[in-house]
């Protein structure tokens, strides 16, 4: 194998090549070291990012599972000192408020998303913009809004809590629906139109089913977000020691119990708080993971 040769006429190139090779060889160790360090740091940071997740879940589990006994699920909250306390009223409250909020926001969010997906005008842009902004509003503000707007008139009730939670969920669902519907290929709608169907029917029979994975995912994530909120509930449902299935009355909810108990020095109450935290976390994580799994499954089902 012979050494490369070039004609003398190309000497400047040879000379430049030599200089470049020298610079490259001289710098390669430094460059590779920088690379190794920088990439190593990235790995370290990745590890750091996962640690809190594991820590929170593990700690909450450890502290919370201890509180999970029969009383916990069947007895309502009791003040400090009184035994056999549980969170049954809070569980019912969370479920009912979540259900009411969901039942109202899903159709509104779907229709709103459909509207946004169907129009590109300035009005639609403004609405889209406000939906995006509303997702960024601190939920405490929604809580105090719920108070001055409704509680002062109608008193504390689970319905107003559902309203506040719904306000948080609605923009999320709207945008998720819009994204999902925009993702439906245009030719599906055109085919429907060509067959002579009315747009409402097309929406119901063709577009919504096609967009269903995105809608369901968005919905589940919105619910997960909604039931985990504390601030909107604090000033709207007031809390209650009684088990009530009536949302027009004050109710309790898991986040509220956690908060209230965390402010008390009683270790039993604190333990109940951890139990509630674990339950809430399990619910929210189940919804989040479930939405992911469902999305992946539905994506595979559709070609």
């Amino acid at each position, binding site marked *: 194998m012979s050494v490369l040769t070039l004609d003398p006429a190309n000497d400047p190139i040879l000379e430049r090549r030599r200089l470049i090779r020298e610079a490259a060889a001289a710098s390669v160790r430094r460059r590779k070291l920088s690379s190794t360090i920088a990439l190593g*740091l*990235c790995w370290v940071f990745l590890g750091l*990012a996962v640690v809190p997740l594991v820590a929170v879940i593990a700690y909450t589990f450890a502290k919370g599972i201890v509180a999970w006994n029969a009383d916990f699920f069947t007895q309502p909250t009791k003040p400090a000192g009184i035994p056999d306390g549980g969170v049954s009223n809070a569980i019912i409250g969370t479920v009912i408020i979540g259900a009411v909020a969901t039942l109202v926001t899903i159709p509104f969010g779907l229709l709103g998303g459909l509207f946004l997906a169907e*129009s590109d005008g300035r009005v639609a842009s403004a609405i889209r913009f406000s939906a995006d902004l509303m997702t960024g509003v601190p939920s405490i503000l929604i809580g105090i809004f719920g108070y001055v707007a409704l509680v002062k008139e109608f008193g504390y009730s689970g319905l107003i809590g559902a309203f506040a939670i719904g306000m948080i969920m609605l923009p999320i669902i709207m945008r998720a629906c819009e994204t999902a519907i925009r993702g439906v290929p245009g030719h599906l709608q055109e085919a429907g139109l060509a067959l002579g169907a009315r747009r409402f029917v097309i929406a119901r029979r063709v577009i919504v089913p096609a967009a269903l994975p995105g809608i369901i995912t*968005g919905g589940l994530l919105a619910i997960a977000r909604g039931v*985990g909120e504390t601030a*909107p509930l604090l000033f709207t449902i007031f809390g209650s020691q009684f088990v009530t299935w009536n949302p027009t009355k004050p109710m309790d909810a898991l986040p509220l119990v*956690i*908060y209230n108990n965390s402010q008390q020095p009683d270790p039993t109450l604190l333990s109940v708080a951890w139990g509630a935290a674990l339950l809430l976390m399990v619910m*929210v994580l189940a919804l989040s993971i479930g939405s992911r799994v469902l999305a992946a499954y539905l994506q595979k089902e559709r070609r």
Partner: protein
Amino acid sequence: MVTDDTKPTDGERRPGGRRSLPNGAWRAILIVVAGLFVALVVWFLYSIVDQARPIFSQLGIGWIFHATWNPNKNQYGLLPFILGTIETTAIAMVLAVPIGLGTALALAYLVPPKVKAVLGSAVELLAAVPSIVYGLWGLVALAPLWREYVEPFLSSVLGWTGLFNGSDDGVGLLLAGTILFIMVLPTMVAISRDVLAVVPREQVEGAMALGATRWQVLRKVVLRDARTGLLGAFTLATGRALGETVAVALVIGNSDYIAHSLKAPSATLASLIFNNFGEASGTELAALFGAGLVLLVIGLAVNAAARALVRGRVGAAGGATSVAVA
């Protein structure tokens, strides 16, 4: 199923739109719904402003920057809380930028494909944990650690900066900032990773083919290409941090005075409202709404900037991947 509605209408001839507004009753329904949403937003904004009006008519605007908050003496000032909000957010972002960016780079370019999905989901799941749980965990699990180990350690190592004076309480700005960091990390990582991952492969390969090391490729090509989107991720995460309420309220120590050390207890605009709203009335109530208004303005401005920055790079970055805010 054949009806008159199939004839093209003005709506469908509108140029430029992929679809057009449908006609008839269906159109009416959609418009009503959209209108209701707008009405709700307007009602919300109006209420906040209206409730805050009394204090502004009493004290003008300057009170926002006064340093004393003492409703019993009819003194109102938001400076301690504005500072607290900024400081906790700053601590959170100082931690979130390098760690978030490093994690995003690792997820986008370093991690093998099989593990990528799992780890990515793990980080995103951080966002699903309710704020109250973070607050409780911070208060019960972390605060003692901060009191016993972290704060003394930082005081000894960084005390010369003058930022670490005072006693080791555990709760305070440091802990609140750290919890905030954990809470905004998923946002930072998820959006950064999306932005980094859409850098065209050809750019990456082009740099590699010139003899660049992996880090040179990441730094000179990938990070540069993704600049705008990364700035958007940063801004979005900052917006989340600014609005976080419950977790912060539980671990910040709730002092109404300007904090003079990173270890000191403090309060944010959000935690101020959270803690005092239940008992407030009259002028104090209006002042709390005033604080809410300030918070709203700051938060909206930051979020709007973030959306503008991110939308250009990745498309609809909003939607389903939301993070709990309070």
